[in-house]
């Protein structure tokens, strides 16, 4: 991994950090809006796990940048085009079915991704991944459970889950696409080549959907662009909420 610069690793780490912070923020929007108290607490626990994950990645990126950047400056002062999260994370939380299906698709991905990242030759990335794996196992247990309960639930819950799945499917392809930059890091043993995760992911998702009496979408549309900073119209609104305080009162501390 000698030919990989810390600037390159920083760019890669920021991608993973942005994925986590945006996913965590979307989940945090459920705080006090959960369908019932127990689920409200559980969802916000998961949100906190993702925000904790984002902090670890951002802190590492700040260390690599070594230019005065901090976790906060990355999260709160960059604009849309500088965020490189995958699009699936930024879609509005929708109804509870949408949140459940997205979480499930992301968890099946995230667990496999972190298992691979554990083998990274970058020891910090491997350490963050080892911590994240345990969380992801629990997240997946929860989200898979909701897939089965609501997919194979009432006619209404099944309809909502199927609609969410159809709506999300086109955003899942991007999860497995690595650009040249990521591939070069993967070849150097630092990054994960996500295309290698697809088969296992698809098998797991198919099994769950079948059990949940949901049908895998067959339409071919797909959307991409997150890694280049080309986002849906939703990210700007998310950031205006997430970044409000630092934008209104720059440098404010608790």
């Amino acid at each position: 991994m000698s030919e990989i610069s810390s600037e390159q690793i920083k760019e890669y780490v920021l991608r993973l950090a942005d994925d986590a912070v945006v996913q965590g923020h979307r989940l945090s929007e459920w705080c006090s809006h959960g369908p019932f108290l127990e689920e409200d607490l559980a969802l916000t626990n998961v949100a906190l796990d993702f925000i904790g994950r984002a902090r670890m990645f951002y802190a590492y990126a700040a260390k690599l940048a070594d230019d005065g950047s901090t976790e906060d400056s990355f999260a709160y002062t960059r604009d849309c085009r500088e965020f490189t999260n995958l699009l699936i994370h930024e879609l509005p939380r929708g109804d509870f079915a949408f949140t459940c299906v997205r979480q499930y698709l992301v968890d099946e991905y995230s667990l496999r991704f972190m298992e691979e990242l554990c083998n990274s030759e970058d020891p910090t990335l491997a350490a963050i991944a080892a911590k994240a794996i345990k969380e992801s196992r629990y997240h997946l247990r929860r989200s898979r459970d909701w897939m089965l309960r609501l997919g194979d639930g009432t006619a209404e819950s099944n309809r909502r889950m199927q609609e969410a799945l159809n709506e999300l499917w086109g955003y899942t392809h991007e999860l497995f696409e690595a650009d040249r930059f990521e591939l070069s890091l993967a070849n150097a043993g630092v990054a994960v080549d996500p295309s290698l995760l697809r088969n296992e992911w698809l098998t797991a998702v198919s099994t769950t959907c079948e059990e949940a009496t949901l049908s895998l979408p067959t339409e071919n549309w797909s959307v991409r662009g997150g890694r280049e900073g080309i986002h849906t119209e939703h990210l700007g609104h998310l950031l205006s909420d997430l970044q409000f305080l630092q934008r209104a009162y720059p440098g404010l501390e608790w």
Partner: protein
Amino acid sequence: MSEAMKLFEVFIRSKRGLDHKHVGSLHAEDAAQALEYARDVYTRRSEGVSIWVVESSMITASQEDDCESFYDPLDDKPYRHATHYQLPEAVNNM
């Protein structure tokens, strides 16, 4: 919250060697879900190493009305209490 949800009582053991203590209750569809919610609701600050959940309806509880017949007859039997023994200082829990 759906009407079908059941109430569960939650017991947490905070350390190895200690016993499970009742910490509260929660609603869930079934025992498996109750266990997960118990983890999220009652062990968020590392309170436990083991969780039990029991459907509240499975618990048979004594009633206020039972007090007289259950407990009053014990009031005049001090010889059943080990109060007259001196405990060594090393014994904390008796």
